[in-house]
């Protein structure tokens, strides 16, 4: 019977080409609008480190103003001070740990004519690479010893390695940064986590750094912090760089890797003990307020997804509702027009269940067509968004449709079409067999 109903559906669609086209278009446009926004939201709310989500934790300790929380009502600061970053890192109580901040270096390519240029850099520690599963094309990150000895080692992104060394294996080669010689220890493979979860405080939707170098070296060399710095207490006057490092200003991201729940509990206990100890020294005037948040919790806490996207998604869903109301109306009109046909089929022995099947299959066909066209509409919608954001180059990474979105679009279209068909089909099935047979 399924194939019979497919045939009847085809005939019915062909008999009302304008109406059927209008229904398919309405569903496609509704799906297109919804899926365009949903795709962007899906990418923005993604978790690129899902596989280690239960092992990685962002560290928060509350060193803030006793009279004025970092964020009302009792939010802890979103970064840590150098004092705490250093003390917690040196304690080494986690399986892996990394402290890092956003900086930049001037790259001086070989050759007298080559102009130097600035590149984004991340000052970080050896564990950064294994913790975040960073893929390497050549070589590896530096070893933990280099974190101590302030070695001039550097890891390059794949793109920068292509620019500087033509994509060759540059491990062991020398690179001049701000007039200092660095040894290349590794080259990353393509790595572009969206969102940039390891540092959501400084624009989660930007490309990762192209240079990675030791944190201790950056501290010793007074590299600029290109990310946010927040202070609640002034740095001691005239104390210079030393004073800043000893201040209560926050500007460093700290992550730890803890392999299981008990390790997490142990680390939390350690953090609490650390803060209690610091309280005795006159720091941490606020109540104990330490947090270990997984990447997904951390991104949610920082509201990585722009509110505008949610507003648009809400309106797009209402848009789909309008399109479906439209489809319901058209299906109903069509059902009324076919009342005689329905009535006759009933007389010839079709049960309500059979009629229901017939109409649901026909609606499903409209849904499949609407879904397929909806995928195309979504593609155009995403291109539209991309062109609106032409000045924001990173947008291209937020408008990518994956197979899960394509599948969702088609499923949503079919479900919508079936949902829209419910009321008209119910009306159809309730047509009494005798009612239209004598009509001319």
């Amino acid at each position, binding site marked *: 019977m399924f194939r019979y109903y497919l045939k009847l559906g085809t005939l019915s669609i062909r008999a009302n080409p304008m109406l059927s086209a209008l229904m398919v278009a309405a569903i496609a446009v509704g799906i297109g609008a919804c899926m365009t926004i949903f795709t962007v939201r899906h990418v923005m709310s993604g978790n690129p480190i899902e596989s280690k989500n239960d092992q990685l934790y962002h560290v928060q300790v509350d060193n803030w103003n006793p009279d004025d929380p970092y964020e009302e009502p009792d939010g802890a600061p979103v970064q840590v001070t150098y004092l705490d970053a250093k003390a917690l890192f040196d304690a080494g109580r986690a399986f892996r740990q990394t402290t890092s901040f956003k900086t930049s270096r001037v790259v001086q390519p070989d050759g007298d004519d080559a102009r130097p240029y600035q590149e984004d850099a991340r000052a970080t520690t050896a564990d950064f690479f294994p913790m975040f599963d960073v893929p390497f094309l050549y070589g590896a990150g530096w070893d933990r010893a280099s974190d101590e000895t302030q070695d001039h080692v550097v890891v390059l992104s794949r793109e920068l390695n292509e620019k500087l060394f033509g994509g060759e294996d540059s491990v062991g080669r020398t690179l001049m940064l701000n007039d200092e010689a660095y040894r290349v220890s590794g080259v990353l493979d393509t790595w572009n986590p969206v969102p940039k979860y390891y540092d959501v405080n400084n624009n989660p939707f930007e490309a990762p750094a192209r240079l990675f170098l030791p944190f201790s070296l950056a501290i010793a060399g007074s590299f600029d912090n290109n990310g946010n710095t927040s202070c609640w207490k002034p740095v001691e006057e005239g104390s210079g760089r030393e004073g800043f490092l000893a201040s209560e200003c926050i500007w460093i991201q700290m992550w730890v890797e803890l392999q299981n729940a008990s390790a997490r509990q142990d680390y939390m206990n350690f953090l609490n003990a650390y803060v209690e100890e610091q309280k005795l020294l006159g720091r941490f005037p606020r109540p104990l307020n330490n947090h270990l948040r997984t990447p997904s919790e951390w991104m949610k806490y920082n509201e990585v997804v722009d509110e505008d996207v949610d507003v648009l998604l809400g309106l797009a869903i209402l848009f789909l509702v309008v399109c479906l109301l439209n489809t319901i109306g058209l299906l109903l009109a069509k059902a009324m027009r076919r009342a005689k046909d329905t009535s006759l089929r009933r007389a010839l022995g079709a049960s309500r269940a059979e009629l229901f099947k017939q109409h649901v299959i026909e609606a499903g066909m409209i849904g499949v067509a609407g879904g397929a066209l909806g995928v195309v509409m979504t593609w155009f919608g995403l291109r539209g968004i991309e062109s609106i954001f032409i000045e924001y180059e990173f947008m291209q990474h937020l408008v990518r449709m994956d197979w899960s979105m394509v599948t969702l679009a088609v499923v949503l279209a079919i479900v919508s079409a079936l949902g829209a068909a419910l009321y008209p089909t119910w009306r159809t099935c309730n047509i009494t067999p005798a009612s239209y047979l*004598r009509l001319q």
Partner: protein
Amino acid sequence: MLNMKNVSKVYRTDTVETHALREFSLIVEEGEFVSVTGPSGSGKTTFLNIAGLLEDLTDGAYELDGRDISKLNDKERSRVRNEKIGFIFQSFNLIPELNIFDNVDVPLRYRGFNADERKRRIEQSIEMVGLGSRMQHLPAQLSGGQQQRVAIARALAGEPRFLLADEPTGNLDSQMADSVLDLLAEINAAGTTIIMVTHELGLADRARRNIFVRDGQVSDNAPELHLASMAAG
């Protein structure tokens, strides 16, 4: 075969209550050719709808082929219509988008026959009504008489025990009407029970038994009385 006892049918709207059938009783035996006549509004169409399971009855008992119809659910009623009853309508009621072959196919699809069985039956019944060369035509390409023959083929393809005809010649000229009636007589001779609703006395005479309906009840009066009633109405 068909046994109606004290059947009533009441149509209710917010303000009006219409008694279309009152205490209607009728027995039709297997193999009969019965005509049902009566003035407009007498209830003959309601009788046909109830006999054909197109409508529910309000009160009374209806047995078809020994089965109590009032106890059946929608699916079972649909099955009975499909297997035991064939319908022929005044306005033919062919599906305009489907060709002759597919029109006759409709009830067989709901019957659940396999493709070979359907094909055999469709071809056989279309041959029988003399339209074997027109199977791929659409209804609009046929004359009224031919369309009614297709409708008869559709009614017969499932080999029903009962044929219910509602003014089968109402839209046909007399020559075509005669040939359709000849076809019905032939079918009846082959063993199919036929009940035909009509207001034309000439047609009623072709049946072996005549039922006259008035005010929702079977009238005991003889045919000469319907002449008077027809003249009056």
